[in-house]
């Protein structure tokens, strides 16, 4: 690593944002690994959430400061490639997590198989609808690698079911909850029947904030529970929605593990141990039926204590 | 004459703005039932003294007593509450509000939290009636009124607040002759009701007509005071300028040359006129007669509706930029709003219309700008800390000189002047008249201000105007200067320009008759 002031390793963990419960879990995992392995973990999201330029600035800042290693969830698979290459040149290794990065200038890629996550949702929807019905895909935001893979995985999964009609798949609801609420409300209102009910059989959302926003729209209009609604990721409110039947299923990743493995892989690399280039942290489908299973429950309500479990 | 304690007494008031000492230990007092005139040259400190009185400016030292009680306003509202009403030199109205709201501003009648519009309207109506202007509607928006009506609204505000001390800082600078008479009658009435009145004006005739006592300031100090009837006009002027003013209206031999401006049936204005090099032509008229609009149309600031207009060899309408190129310059009547950019320096304002020769190509060198400007600052005796001072910090009269100097810097052939001496003191007026005369005649002559103890250099008229004679077209509401300075004069009445006659064929009386539309031939 670059010029460190003391011998203890310092690892910068840069998420895409900070407010989603998902990132809180990543943080818990990363800090737990930090404690376990006795390394310093600096947690800093980009100043503007979902702003590529701002994340690049963060990476540049840490390169100049000279941390031992950077663990990064790139907001963009291309835009972040240059600063990561720069880090490599300055002998600062980088581990990528959550979302992919073009090129191979990193030590390892720790992430969920997002395409598989989308496919899981598609299979679930198809089986619940018995292969027939009207479905809406609400996209997240332009140019995000992980979420667009989920969207593609979902559409590919449904392609094999000719009886399923996709009403809308070109609308982006955006990165903030408020905008997502407004846009999804307007989009869904279009499919409102005369009696006020929703003429849509299933809806799929690809991340936590949009899932939450759409759940709120469904609740506010009294549509919740009447339409099959599949979301992505977990938070307290989403789990509550799942328990109450407002959400039919949630595709859940294992963020704590992702954060933990991200830091652990980096430390292994720094200590000269060999590491795998691709680490899959797994993806599961949580429904009302299986949500009490210990394995699924741990994913839905992860233990966020920072210490060793 | 009055007796007992003065209503207002100011002692040893000092105020400095940075390096400028505006007031240097001024004493001033006014008694109930007295009109006290405050006179002095531009920048003498009159407005500043009144700003101290009305709580706008806090003095560095000195004391004030109001009816024997110590008085130290911290904010204008304190002064208003203590019964000091003020009409400011610069118009101060809220243009988006109605007439009645402007009159009641700060003292609106409220009952149970709600505004009492009726009460407000009645108050406004009463105050306007007192001025003899019932035709100004209390519900009208102030921005829609003519400048003269706006001035009247301001007077009405001072009346409506039920004050004990009334300060008028050049209230007549945009009032018509009739309105001035009405204002004087009103002041007489208020005086007899025991009001203490401070009257600031550059018109010595007005001072003599209305005041009981005169206090003269020069360079922020008291230089004289006395009962008005004991002080002839020359004595007042002498105190003001610290010397003598000779030949207020100089007149060198002028020889009319080629025609520089020709108007044929120009609308708006119904104007037919031709102006030659070496001539000064004046336009008289009542307020709102349309004189300003005529000048603005000539200069391209408003569009020509019909008729012909020719400037030198160029015919037809043109933009202001083109007019400058054709050798025409204009002085606006609205100094603060249009004439000058108050945030910019004297140098910037002076050279704004002609930056071309201040550097090679499209470049402008600030040093050349400053030296060009300081030449004019010296010649016009502009009281300032230098060409870099912001114009907004100058006194009104000095600002006017900057605006006029711009035309000379541009070296125009035709000067279009709208109220060129508004708000200017006698001494400076004489200087400006001398400049205009020199410009028109193309001849130099002795500077008008001789032995001065005031220490201010006079405008050096002979260096201002060398070479060719120029032409001047000027609008003025001050009849003596039109008659004294112009070769020919025309009268504008209700938007129509009358025939142009030799100045010697007019008298103040006949001008007034014609302007009011009551002419007999």
């Amino acid at each position: 690593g670059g010029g460190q002031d003391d011998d203890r390793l310092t690892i910068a963990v840069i998420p895409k944002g900070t407010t989603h419960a998902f990132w809180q879990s990543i943080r818990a995992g990363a800090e737990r690994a930090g404690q376990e392995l006795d390394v310093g973990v600096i947690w800093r999201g980009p100043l503007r959430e979902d702003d590529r330029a701002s994340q690049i600035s963060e990476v540049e800042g840490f390169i100049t400061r000279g941390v031992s290693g950077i663990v990064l969830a790139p907001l963009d698979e291309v835009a972040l490639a240059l600063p990561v290459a720069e880090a490599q040149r300055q002998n600062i290794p980088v581990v990528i997590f959550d979302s992919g990065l073009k090129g191979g200038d990193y030590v390892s890629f720790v992430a969920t198989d997002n395409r598989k996550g989308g496919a899981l949702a598609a299979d679930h929807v198809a089986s619940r609808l018995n292969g027939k019905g009207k479905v809406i895909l609400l996209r997240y935001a332009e140019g995000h690698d992980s979420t667009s893979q989920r969207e593609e995985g979902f559409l590919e999964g449904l392609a094999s079911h000719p009886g399923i009609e996709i009403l809308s798949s070109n609308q982006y609801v955006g990165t903030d909850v408020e905008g997502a609420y407004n846009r999804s409300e307007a989009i869904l209102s279009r499919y409102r029947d005369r009696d006020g009910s929703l003429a849509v059989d299933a809806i799929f959302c690809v991340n936590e904030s949009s899932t939450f926003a759409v759940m709120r729209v469904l609740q506010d209009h009294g549509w919740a529970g009447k339409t099959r609604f599949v979301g992505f990721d977990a938070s307290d409110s989403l789990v509550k929605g799942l328990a109450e039947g407002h959400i039919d299923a949630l595709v859940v990743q294992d963020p704590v593990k992702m954060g933990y493995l991200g830091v652990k892989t980096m430390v292994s690399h720094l200590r000269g141990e060999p590491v795998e280039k691709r680490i899959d942290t797994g993806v599961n489908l949580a429904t009302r039926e299986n949500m009490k299973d210990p394995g699924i429950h741990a994913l839905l309500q992860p233990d966020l204590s920072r210490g060793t479990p | 004459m009055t007796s007992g304690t003065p209503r207002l007494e100011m002692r040893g008031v000092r105020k400095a703005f940075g390096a400028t000492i505006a007031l240097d230990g001024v004493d001033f007092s006014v008694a109930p039932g007295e009109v006290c005139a405050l006179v002095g040259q531009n920048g003498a400190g009159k407005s500043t003294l009144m700003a101290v009185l009305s709580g706008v400016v806090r003095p560095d030292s000195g004391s004030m007593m109001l009816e024997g009680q110590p008085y130290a306003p911290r904010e204008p509202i304190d002064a208003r509450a203590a019964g000091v009403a003020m009409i400011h030199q610069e118009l101060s109205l809220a243009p988006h509000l109605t007439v009645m709201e402007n009159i009641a501003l700060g003292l609106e009648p409220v009952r149970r939290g709600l505004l009492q519009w009726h009460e407000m309207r009645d108050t406004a109506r009463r105050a306007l009636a007192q001025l003899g202007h019932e035709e100004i509607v209390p519900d009208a928006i102030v921005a829609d009124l003519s400048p003269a009506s706006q001035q009247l609204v301001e007077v009405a505000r001072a009346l409506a607040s039920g004050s004990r001390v009334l300060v008028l800082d050049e209230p007549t600078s945009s009032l018509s002759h009739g309105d001035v008479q009405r204002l004087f009658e009103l002041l007489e009435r208020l005086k007899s009701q025991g009001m203490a009145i401070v009257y600031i004006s550059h018109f010595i005739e007005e001072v003599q007509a209305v005041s009981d006592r005169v206090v003269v300031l020069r360079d922020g100090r008291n230089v004289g005071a006395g009962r008005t009837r004991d002080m002839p006009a020359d004595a007042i002027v002498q105190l003001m300028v610290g010397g003598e003013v000779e030949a207020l209206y100089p007149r060198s031999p002028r020889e009319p040359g080629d025609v520089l401006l020709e108007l044929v049936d120009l609308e708006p204005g119904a104007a037919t006129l031709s102006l030659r090099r070496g001539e000064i032509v004046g336009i008289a008229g009542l307020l709102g007669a349309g004189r300003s609009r005529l000048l603005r149309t000539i200069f391209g600031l408003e569009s020509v509706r019909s008729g012909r207009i020719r400037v030198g060899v160029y015919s037809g309408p043109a933009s202001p930029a083109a007019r400058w190129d054709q050798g025409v310059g204009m002085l606006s009547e609205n100094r603060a709003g249009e004439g000058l950019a108050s945030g910019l320096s004297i140098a910037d304002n002076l050279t704004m219309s002609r930056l071309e020769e201040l550097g090679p190509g499209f470049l402008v060198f600030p040093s050349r700008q400053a030296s060009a400007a300081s030449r004019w600052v010296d010649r016009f005796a502009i009281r300032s800390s230098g060409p870099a001072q912001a114009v907004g910090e100058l006194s009104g009269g000095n600002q006017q000189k900057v605006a006029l100097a711009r035309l000379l810097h541009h070296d125009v052939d035709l000067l279009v002047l709208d109220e060129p001496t508004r708000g200017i003191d006698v001494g400076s007026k004489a200087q400006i008249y001398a400049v205009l005369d020199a410009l028109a005649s193309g001849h130099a002559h002795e500077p008008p201000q001789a032995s001065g103890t005031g220490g201010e250099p006079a405008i050096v008229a002979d260096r201002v105007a060398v070479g060719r004679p120029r032409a001047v077209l000027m609008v003025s509401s001050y009849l003596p200067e039109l008659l004294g300075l112009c070769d020919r004069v025309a009268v504008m009445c209700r938007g129509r320009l009358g025939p142009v006659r030799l100045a010697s064929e007019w008298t103040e009386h006949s001008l007034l008759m014609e302007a009011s539309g009551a002419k007999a031939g």
Partner: protein
Amino acid sequence: MRGDTGVLLGLLLVALIFGLLIGPRFFRPANLELMARQTVIVCVAALGMTMVIVSGGIDLSVGSIVALSTVVTALLLRMGMDPALAALGALAAAALCGTVNGLLITRLRVVPFIVTLGTMLLVRGAAKGLAEERRIEAPITWLNGLLRTARDGNLGVPAGVWLTIVLAVLVAGVLGYTRFGRHLFAIGSNERTARLCGVRIDRRKLQVYSLSAAFAGLAGVLEFSRLAVGDPTVGVGLELDVIAAVIIGGGSLSGGKGTVLGTVAGAAIMAVIQIGCSQHGLPNWVQQIVTGIIIVIAVALDRWRQAPTR
């Protein structure tokens, strides 16, 4: 005199265009109610902003104050406080931010643009800090029903919409019929004159910024009512929408002009465009282009209508 006729015509025009594009279902009561519901948050904040802009000021911190208000509401609810008290607490926190704005503007004599740009960052940071950089989940209470369609009672219109209407009438009254309101116009029209006439400018400014922030706080409570979480990242860029609503509605950034009716119509225009584009299935980028063009045209029409004939 009336600066809001233009914007009302504009609103009509925009609604008609989308009505033609989408068909009569665009005007079904349910859809109109949707528009009303999506307007209220911008609308409530814009009521406060109208007063600020009339007084010649500007308030860039409203977006951040909305976020702070959602966070405070959620935190108080989570502490088990009564929903009404929690909402009041959020209003108080918001008004406090406004008072800080007002104090900085009047005491330090810094222009409102800078002061509120500073507090925009400051309040946003405070909201994130309070929320520990995450979304605060809170129990569902009747607060979350404020913008829910009432199927019975309330004439089928959500309580939040009624609240907004009442507030709009109130603010219009304050602006037109109280000393406070007329002083705001006087200050915005000519601050020097207002001062010379004894209007206590500093006090008025303090009041108007506090009030505006309280309105933003209320907008935050309504936002919370929809989101059911305290979200410190909500409302980024909201201030521009709010200011745009006021300006489209005939307000002038140089002060002295602005009406409540205009502001409400301005906010409505933007909601109609947004909903119309979404329901017509236009992509977001087309919607942005349309909104941009309409903003300019609405104001241009208005200026053109009022232009002096010369």
